[in-house]
């Protein structure tokens, strides 16, 4: 375990610990009667269960997950659609608290799931920087310190004074990416890679993202892009139907997963 010193000179260690974590989703609008007959293991998704008494359908998205991630780990999350990757990331982010079991996380977390989060099309680029920062829990002073960096990196210049609905999609991506990656975090949670934009920007963006990852203690990265996972990660976890079926070196995980797919 690597310990890293913060500004306060307190050595801190980041970790994520899952202890017998179960996450169930109750689907209230689904007709339990219809689904009763289709109670089976599907090719995709978790395990759908119905209960006779309550006429409710619940989906077990994560079943009995035990996982220990510590500083230095760059974890690749592999699995089919609906295997539980996103649910697991959200449980790590603290959004879903487990139905049973416990999730214990130490370190500042940052999730890069939804880049457009909390933005408003009628607001200017600057206002959106402020909006986004406030929404994810920062104070105004913290955000103002980041603005110059975001402005410089996005390369949008005076366009930041215009409402973002006037932006081209490429410009929008530049802004979104610059905002999302402007913050420091101990634990980075990523659902798919963020590199995008025009050719110039992709190179710049990838470099910035790699820097961000290098500075973080922990990365958990869910993706289907094998090459990227192999390049960025050192540990691989394969999920299947909400269970961990493999946890080990990223190379082995990828080899195993590729075999399953074909």
């Amino acid at each position, binding site marked *: 375990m690597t310990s890293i010193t913060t500004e306060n000179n307190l050595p801190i260690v980041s970790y994520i610990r899952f202890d017998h974590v179960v996450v169930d989703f109750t689907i209230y609008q689904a007709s339990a009667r219809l689904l009763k007959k289709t109670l089976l293991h599907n090719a995709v998704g978790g395990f759908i269960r119905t209960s006779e008494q309550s006429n409710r359908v619940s989906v077990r998205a994560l079943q009995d997950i035990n996982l220990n991630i510590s500083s230095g780990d760059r974890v690749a999350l592999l699995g089919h659609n609906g295997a539980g990757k996103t649910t697991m990331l959200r449980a790590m982010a603290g*959004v879903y*608290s487990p139905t049973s079991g416990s999730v214990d996380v130490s370190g500042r977390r940052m999730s890069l799931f939804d880049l457009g989060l909390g933005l408003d099309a009628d607001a200017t680029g600057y206002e959106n920087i*402020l909006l986004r920062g406030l*929404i994810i829990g920062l104070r105004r002073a913290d955000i103002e310190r980041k603005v110059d960096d975001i402005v410089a990196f996005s390369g949008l210049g005076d366009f930041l004074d215009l409402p973002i609905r006037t932006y081209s999609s490429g410009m929008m991506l530049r802004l979104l990416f610059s905002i999302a990656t402007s913050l420091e975090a101990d634990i980075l949670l990523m659902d798919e890679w963020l590199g995008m934009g025009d050719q110039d920007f992709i190179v710049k963006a990838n470099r910035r993202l790699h820097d961000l990852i290098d500075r973080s203690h922990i990365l958990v990265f869910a993706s289907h892009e094998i090459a990227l996972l192999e390049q960025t990660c050192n540990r691989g976890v394969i999920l299947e139907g909400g269970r961990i079926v493999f946890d080990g070196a990223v190379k082995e995980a990828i080899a195993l997963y590729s075999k399953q797919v074909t």
Partner: protein
Amino acid sequence: MTERGIGSALRESVVNLRDFDRWATLAWIDTTLRYRRTMLGPWWVTLSTGVLIGSVGLVWGAIFNMDLAAYMPFFATGIILWTLISGSLTEGCNVFTQAGSLIKSVPVPLMTHVYRMLARQIIILTHNAVLIVLLWLIFQWPLSWSVVLVVPGLIIVAIALVGGVLALGILCTRFRDVPQIIAAILQLLFLLTPIMWTSDSIRGKAVSVMLDINPFYYLLEVVREPLLGHSPESYVWIGAGVVSLTSLLIGHALYGRFRHRVAYWL
């Protein structure tokens, strides 16, 4: 790590209340964005309430045969407070469902969304309050020192609203029929609460029980009375206090118990 008690909910409430800078700024941005590209901006609120007070005040004043100098301030203060209360509760129903994508992405305390919405309502209230000042300049009804009681009155109302919005926000996220029910109830209560008509007109009759059991009556009176130059009677203070405290406790009990489920219900 999953605390479920009402105590931890109240603690979270207070901690987030101190984060004034964050939710107030968000509410302010929301408000300016909502009226962007309009010429009057948020003053549209003032204008439309002003037209409502002017026209309804004239017509109903005539129907009830009331002195405009007495009826206009009464109706204006009543409708402006009602806008605050019903607006908060109506939006309170959607406070979590609207922030769905946020709640599912970042672990920001749900209280932030509640305060953000209530701050928006207070911004609207401030814009409407200008009308009360204008009306006073016209009619100059006698005010006494008791006008300062507006402050504790508004605090009582605000506490009641925090509790009410929390409870409704949680219930409406789980049971999607509740917003419709609340909208219907609020519409009915607008007519059953003395806003357009005065409580004196039914005092002494059997239906006045309707006032005694109407929580909104107390919440209105506790602010309206000081604004009209009276000191609220003790039963109004007690009534409003009980409503406020009950609402606060119910809201936080539900919040403590179910805040971790809200993300799943979205």
